[in-house]
């Protein structure tokens, strides 16, 4: 047995231990793009949200006439907001899957295997639970809960996913949870926290991962 043999053995052990337990094809670039989509979504949502108080004004004193068109605000604002949220989500997921698929192909790793299955399963639990909870609260009129709850549950899903991929994902999750809790302390600023959590943090995390692993 020669020294190079031993070193090959050790190298293959290290790589297998990592590849067998972690999904390392997640694309950092897709994190950056998801953050950009979220920021675009937040900018698009901003004017919509700032029409809502106008509706209350006109409803109370009737002093503000341009608001007439927003009498049924609950429907006219909620529908486009919902559309923006879904569009951001779909665009992010599609970009993530596509770029991750390309990276997996380049690295010769299977995109659908034991590790990616466990990664998705562990992410799905808090996401589905949180998503349903948020929908229930929206239906009952508690709009204020959307931003903090979505950040917290998203953070929890990332912490769970962190065990099956890069460690950075876990730190990102912890940041999202902390941000969600702060957002809960400041009702009315949900959109800003949302933009920071889903936009800025994703861009920071994505660039760090990109510089560290993708190049």
């Amino acid at each position: 047995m020669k020294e190079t043999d031993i070193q090959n053995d050790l190298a293959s052990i290290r790589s297998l231990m990592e590849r067998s337990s972690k999904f390392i094809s997640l694309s950092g670039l897709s994190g950056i793009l998801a953050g950009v989509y979220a920021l675009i979504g937040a900018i698009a949502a901003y004017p919509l949200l700032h029409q809502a108080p106008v509706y209350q004004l006109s409803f109370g004193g009737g002093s503000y006439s341009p608001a007439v068109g927003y009498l049924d605000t609950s429907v006219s604002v909620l529908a486009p907001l919902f559309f923006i949220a879904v569009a951001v989500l779909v665009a992010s997921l599609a970009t993530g899957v596509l770029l991750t698929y390309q990276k997996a192909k380049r690295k010769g790793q299977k995109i659908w295997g034991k590790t990616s299955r466990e990664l998705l399963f562990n992410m799905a639990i808090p996401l589905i639970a949180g998503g349903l909870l948020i929908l229930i609260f929206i239906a009952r009129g508690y709009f204020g809960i959307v931003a903090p709850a979505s950040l917290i549950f998203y953070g929890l899903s990332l912490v769970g996913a962190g065990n099956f991929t890069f460690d950075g994902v876990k730190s990102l999750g912890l940041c999202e949870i902390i941000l969600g809790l702060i957002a809960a302390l400041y009702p009315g600023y949900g959109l800003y926290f949302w933009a920071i959590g889903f936009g800025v943090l994703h861009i920071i995390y994505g660039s760090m991962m990109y510089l560290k692993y993708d190049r």
Partner: protein
Amino acid sequence: MKIPFDKLDKAFENRLRLQIMSVLVANQRYDFNSLKDLLDITDGNLASHLKGLEKEEYILVNKSFLGRKPNTNYEATDKGKKAFAGHLDALEQLIKSTKS
């Protein structure tokens, strides 16, 4: 200078067995097909090495059914984990002794 080859575990002489063992040490359990995909080897090759490790009592085999498909899971025993750690130590010493 004497190189401690005797400390190396004979069961891990084959590179594939060492690789299988490292996957099972890093994960609680691993199933046959995922192992096959990961190592990129044939059914027969993998099965014979798994049998070898089983004979040494380094791994445990759990057979079950997922629906109607057989699903075989493997996990490392304490004995196997200890042997693996000992083998790594021996490799480390070998490298050190050849460098000095």
